[in-house]
């Protein structure tokens, strides 16, 4: 057991970057590992559903190159979690390919561990049948047929699969879907740091420099963990942490300010103390870790809903604006008839949404303001159908119908929509939805996470 572990978070997201000199300095000051989160569900279900990684690839490669260069020359491990943005198998492969390229280009030799977190649909369906899957709240319906129809599932690993990779001697660990906190808690817990310290430090480190008083740009963050607590200090001298900034970061993106549920237990920060250790460093003590009776991992899934095409238009005529709602509902009924006539589709076989910016474009049904303000609105006509071809075919029907739909105040053919582009229609590709907010009860925390190790 060692007394202290110094953890470096390269940045909040592998694709956003950090300053080279900050990372160089942070590792030079002594570090036991460099971690980096590479994903999130924030940007929606597309990446998980499509298998596409979020780049830019060159940016991710630049960041990985610097992280690997510094860590390998210091002889410390690198841990990347939620590879390729969603942590599925194609995302993991995308990231591993970059790592292998870097090893070849720079003649680096190291042991690389890949941890696959994609869960086969039949495995998940079997777990569901055995009663091992439970919904969180709120959750979409997840029955056997929903699982089989979905595109892809991942399980979110805790610290144990990462620890297994480190124990196998991996110098670089690329993990699929992974708890952000686990990236930073895995190695410290392995080295004897108490879980309450390691998990709370992980929560603070996972967004990189975001816990600084003013994050001027994405950058690194460092924490020194010991038996009693941890001290967080930005390695970039231009940034500083204050007790307020670090405590406030505990709130960010979590539903409950004091209780963070992780695989294996719950971090309780309700009695945590945040004290200035210097004018730039903060000492955090007093958190608790409450182990859970059963070990669960969160399941994420995405299912294909259809294909989207859109068109953007402005409406400026005050006479149209003052009757916009009935106007759009007339357009809708004319469109339904035309689509049925020309494409033989019933209205329940596709969807048309009028997203009216200037009314409730941002909040939709949740918008409390009902009276119209402003001299124009922006309209996004949003069509989703069962194929890209169909969605693209419906777009001109809607846009042409809306363009010339009459209003009683104007006699003669009018053109209601200001289209900024030609062609107006834009194919937006496949549309997915998150189809699981569930947990899976496991006997062995490593069981569904397949590890492969290669020597580069």
């Amino acid at each position: 057991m060692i007394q202290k572990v110094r953890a470096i978070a390269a940045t909040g997201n592998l694709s956003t970057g950090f300053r080279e000199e900050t990372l160089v300095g942070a590792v030079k000051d002594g570090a036991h590992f460099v971690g980096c989160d590479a994903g999130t569900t924030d940007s929606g279900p597309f990446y998980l559903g499509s298998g596409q990684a979020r780049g830019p690839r060159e940016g991710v490669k630049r960041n990985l190159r610097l992280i690997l260069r510094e860590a390998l020359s210091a002889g410390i491990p690198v841990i990347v979690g939620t590879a390729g943005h969603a942590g599925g198998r194609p995302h993991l492969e995308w990231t591993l390919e970059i790592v292998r390229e870097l090893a070849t280009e720079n003649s680096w030799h190291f042991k690389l561990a890949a941890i696959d977190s994609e869960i086969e649909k039949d495995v998940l369906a079997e777990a569901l049948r055995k009663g091992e899957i439970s919904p969180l709240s709120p959750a979409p319906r997840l029955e056997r047929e929903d699982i089989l129809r979905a595109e892809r599932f991942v399980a979110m690993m805790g610290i144990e699969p990462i620890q297994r990779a480190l124990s196998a001697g991996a110098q670089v660990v690329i993990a699929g879907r992974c708890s952000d906190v686990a990236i930073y808690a895995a190695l410290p817990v392995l080295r004897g740091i108490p879980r309450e310290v390691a998990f709370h430090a992980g929560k603070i480190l996972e967004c990189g420099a975001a816990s600084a008083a003013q994050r001027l740009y994405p950058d690194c963050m460092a924490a020194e963990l010991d038996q009693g607590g941890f001290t967080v200090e930005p390695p970039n001298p231009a940034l500083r942490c204050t007790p307020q900034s670090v405590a406030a970061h505990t709130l960010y993106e979590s539903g409950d300010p004091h209780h963070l549920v992780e695989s294996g237990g719950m971090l309780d920060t309700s009695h945590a103390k945040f004290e200035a250790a210097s004018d730039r460093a903060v000492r955090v003590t007093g958190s608790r870790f409450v182990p859970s009776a059963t070990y669960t991992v969160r399941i994420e899934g995405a299912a294909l809903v259809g294909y989207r095409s859109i068109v953007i238009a402005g409406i400026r005529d005050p006479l149209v604006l003052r009757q916009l709602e009935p106007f759009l509902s007339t357009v809708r009924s004319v469109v339904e008839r035309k689509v049925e006539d020309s494409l033989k589709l019933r209205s329940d076989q596709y969807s048309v949404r009028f997203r009216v910016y200037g009314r409730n474009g941002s909040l939709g049904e949740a918008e409390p303001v009902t009276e119209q303000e402003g001299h124009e609105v922006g309209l996004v006509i949003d069509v989703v159908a069962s194929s890209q071809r169909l969605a693209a075919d419906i777009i001109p029907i809607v846009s042409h119908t809306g363009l010339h739909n009459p209003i009683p105040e104007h006699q003669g053919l009018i053109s209601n929509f200001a289209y900024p582009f030609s062609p107006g229609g834009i194919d937006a590709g496949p549309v997915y939805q998150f189809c699981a907010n569930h947990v899976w009860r496991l006997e062995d925390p490593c069981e569904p996470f397949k590890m492969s190790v290669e020597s580069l």
Partner: protein
Amino acid sequence: MQELWQLTKLIRSKNAGPFELTFDIMFKDFDGFERVLDSDVLCAENIAQLYKIEISQVRFFRIDNLLAIKITIPRHIFSGDIEDTDIYGGQFHGPLVRLQIEVGPNPGKQRGYVSD
């Protein structure tokens, strides 16, 4: 009357995962924090009404050491569903920014509250 933003240094909303929204409201000083809490303008009941959900679905946290209020609600429409308007949930705080808060002697202070 003052508007909520005049008493705060941060009002934000954000997804807490794809299925929940969380609001963080951080105050400039204890006086504004107390005033808003005492006004009952920003309470679980009003949030339920404003965002058209059940009051039992509103989780309301008062965090004294940060002079902050945190409110977490389920998303009616999950992030990325075809009806969704705000994938990150970053603009749902909009209706809170100009909430009208009564000015005048702090009712909390009248009841003898102290600032820590």
